[in-house]
């Protein structure tokens, strides 16, 4: 109760700063583990990491699944918001979009398995309808070599996420600038270039970064819908973390630290690049 009686930002921020400390501490500890060997500090594990065939294969597999999932989720979610945002803002529309958000990723993964697996409901229905000769004639969409099932699950879950994150940005677009552009002789193209894109771009970048980090390093869905080789990075890291050998544990720490470092650097760089324009936009004189 006491923390609330003062409005000093420093006091209000104490819990948040403690949280930040927790994060920094955890990352530092993970890093320390990655360079610790029974014989003392060493960078050796980072070198060895890239000699692991399992990892190389995993990186290519993970990157392509992540890229396809993120690209399509953002593109489709963005298109949906652009065309339909007035309906999504209605209570009914919002509830519909919220439904997939309610289910954990692995539950949705199970649903995809139930629906699209070779022994799934659709396959069964097609067989009953006489469109399919046997179970094996149904395409392998889950636990497949290309990660189609993983991608389908992510798209199904992340498109609503993209929609809900982008919706406020679209509802708050400064429409008055549309009128200014019209009387200055500009059309839809100028509206997009001068208003829509500058206002929406930071949110899109943010969503892209969140989804990339999440999909690239999530364990739950690939554990369910993936195959045993190649594995997505998180599954590999998890296996290594529980591996019997000391090196494997160190590989797990090293791999996660490396990913954290790269993703963190990309995120900080993008924010630094967008910061000035974001600040300028916040000084806009329009009124809603």
């Amino acid at each position, binding site marked *: 109760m006491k923390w609330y009686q003062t409005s000093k930002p420093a*006091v209000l921020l104490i819990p948040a700063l403690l949280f930040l400390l927790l994060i920094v501490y955890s990352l530092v500890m*993970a890093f320390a583990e990655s360079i610790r060997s029974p014989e003392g500090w060493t960078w050796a594990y980072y070198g060895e990491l890239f000699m692991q065939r399992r990892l190389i294969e995993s990186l290519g597999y993970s990157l392509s699944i992540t890229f396809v999932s993120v690209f399509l989720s953002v593109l489709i979610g963005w298109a949906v918001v652009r065309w339909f945002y007035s309906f999504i803002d209605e209570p009914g529309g919002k509830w519909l979009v919220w439904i997939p958000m309610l289910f954990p990723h692995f539950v949705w993964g199970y649903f995809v398995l139930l629906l699209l697996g070779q022994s799934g409901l659709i396959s069964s229905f097609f067989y009953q309808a006489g469109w399919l000769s046997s179970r094996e004639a149904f395409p392998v969409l889950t636990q497949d070599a290309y990660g189609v099932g993983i991608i389908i699950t992510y798209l199904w879950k992340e498109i609503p996420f993209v929609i809900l994150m982008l919706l406020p940005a679209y509802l708050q677009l400064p429409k008055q600038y549309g009128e200014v552009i019209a009387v200055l002789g500009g059309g839809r193209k100028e509206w997009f270039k001068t208003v829509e894109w500058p206002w929406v771009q930071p949110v899109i970048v943010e969503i892209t970064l969140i989804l990339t980090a999440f999909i690239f390093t*999530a364990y739950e869905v690939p554990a369910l819908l993936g195959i045993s080789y190649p594995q997505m990075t998180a599954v590999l890291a998890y296996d290594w973390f529980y591996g019997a050998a000391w090196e494997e544990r160190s590989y797990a720490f090293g791999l996660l630290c490396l990913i954290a470092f790269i993703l963190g650097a990309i995120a900080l760089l993008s924010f630094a690049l967008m910061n000035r324009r974001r600040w300028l936009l916040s000084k806009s004189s329009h009124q809603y």
Partner: protein
Amino acid sequence: MKKWIFYGSAFLLFFIPAILLIVKSFTPVWRWGEPFTFDWTLRGWETFLMDARIFDAMAISLVIALVVTFLNLFTGIPAGKALSHSEFRGKSALEVLLVLPLFLPAMAAAVGLHITMIRLGLANNWLGVAIVHLVPTIPYTIKVMKSGYDRLNPDMLQQGKMLGAGGWHVFRTIELPMLMPSIRSAVFLTVTISMSQYVLTAIIGGGNVITLPIIYYPFLQSVDDTVMAAFSVAFAILPVLAVLFVELVATVLTGRFSISKRGAL
């Protein structure tokens, strides 16, 4: 026309799957290639609810989710207020740092905390699991609460203080009711995310903290779609229950409960 395209596809892609899972939880197992039967049964839910392991898992998941929610609000509300209503050096940098965990692998934080948790006796303990669940949730709560405060005019809070109300009173009677939509979203997100954590829970809980996600995976092997469907639907019901619970707490806190009672008299 546009409206129909949107509602049609949202209905088909978002609503029907949920309905399908609910229907499946009340129908017997459909064997491949055999006709779908609709002999309604409660077997799935009975199995789900009668299983002692599941019941314990549900209880521990709820406790963890509520503790995580409380810590989220405790952190997110004041931080949102500070980030929205005051100016200080390094504010935009701090804002970025506070959402940065969303752009990092949560698993890195979990493995980093593991050894410390063991030393502190928090590994294999529900409290340790709750702490690690803060990593993927707090950044969202801070974001949501900050935009909630952005919509709340600081002068309005000042007005409350000018009229002689104390800080806590202003919070209870002005901020809390006006922030309710943001709090609702934050709670919803927090509980859903907490309920979705398998790997973080597994690493810190070390197989001793059995939450719903932890036993969901072994259950998948059972190939009993009826029970699995019931299990799946339960995941969506729990966040709704949690929001109702928080709503109740907020109603008592803001004093609207007693006012409406007085009105009835």
